[in-house]
C-alpha cells in the first residue's frame, strides 16, 4: 500500500491529468506540450494557493 503525502498526491494527480488534457485539447505536439505544462502549473499552483488560504482562515 502506498502512503502518499498530500503534496505527492497533488503532483501525481496534476501530472496524469495534465498529460491527458494536453494530448486531447490541442492538435500539434508542441502545443500539446505547452498546454500540458500550463495545466500542470495551474493544478499545482491553485492547490498551493488554496492551501495557504485555508491555513490562514484556520488560524
Amino acid at each position, binding site marked *: 500500500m502506498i502512503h*502518499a503525502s498530500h503534496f505527492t498526491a497533488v503532483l501525481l494527480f496534476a501530472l496524469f491529468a495534465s*498529460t491527458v488534457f494536453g494530448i486531447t485539447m490541442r*492538435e500539434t505536439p508542441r502545443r500539446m506540450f505547452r498546454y500540458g505544462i500550463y495545466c500542470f502549473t495551474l493544478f499545482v499552483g491553485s492547490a498551493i494557493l488554496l492551501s495557504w488560504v485555508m491555513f490562514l482562515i484556520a488560524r
Partner: protein
Amino acid sequence: MLYSQKGMATTATKNDAGQNSQQGFVYLPLIAGWLVPGAGHFLLRKWGRGALLAASIVGMFALGLAMKGKIYTGAQDILDLLGMAGDLGNGLLFFVSRVLGLGADQVQVTTADYGTKFIVVAGLLNVIAAVDAHNLRTGRKS
C-alpha cells in the same frame, strides 16, 4: 483516348484511397478507447499519443488501487451513483477489478480517499481520451 500509367496517382485513385481509410465502423475507436485506455488511438496509428494516454490512465488507476481506494459496486445514494459513473469510464479495468475483488470495501485512511478519487478521475480522463479518438476518426481533429 484514355491515358493511364501504372503507379500514377490520379485524383480518382487518391479519393478512393481516402475513402478506404475512412471505411469501417466509425465508433470502433470510441468503444475500444473506452474499454482499453489508449486503444482508440492505437487503432488510428497514433502510437505516441496512445501510449502516453494509456500510461497516464492505467497509472492513475493503479495508484488509486495501491492507495487502497474504493471501487464503487453499487449506488446507495446520489454521490455513490456519480462515483460509479466515473468508475465505469475505466472500461475493462473497472470490470476486471470488480471480478478480482480489488480495491478496498471501505475508506478508512486519508490515502484511501485520495485513491478513490484517483480511480474516479482515471475513468473520467479515459472518457475524454475515447472521445478524442472518435474526433480523430471522424476528422474533426487531426
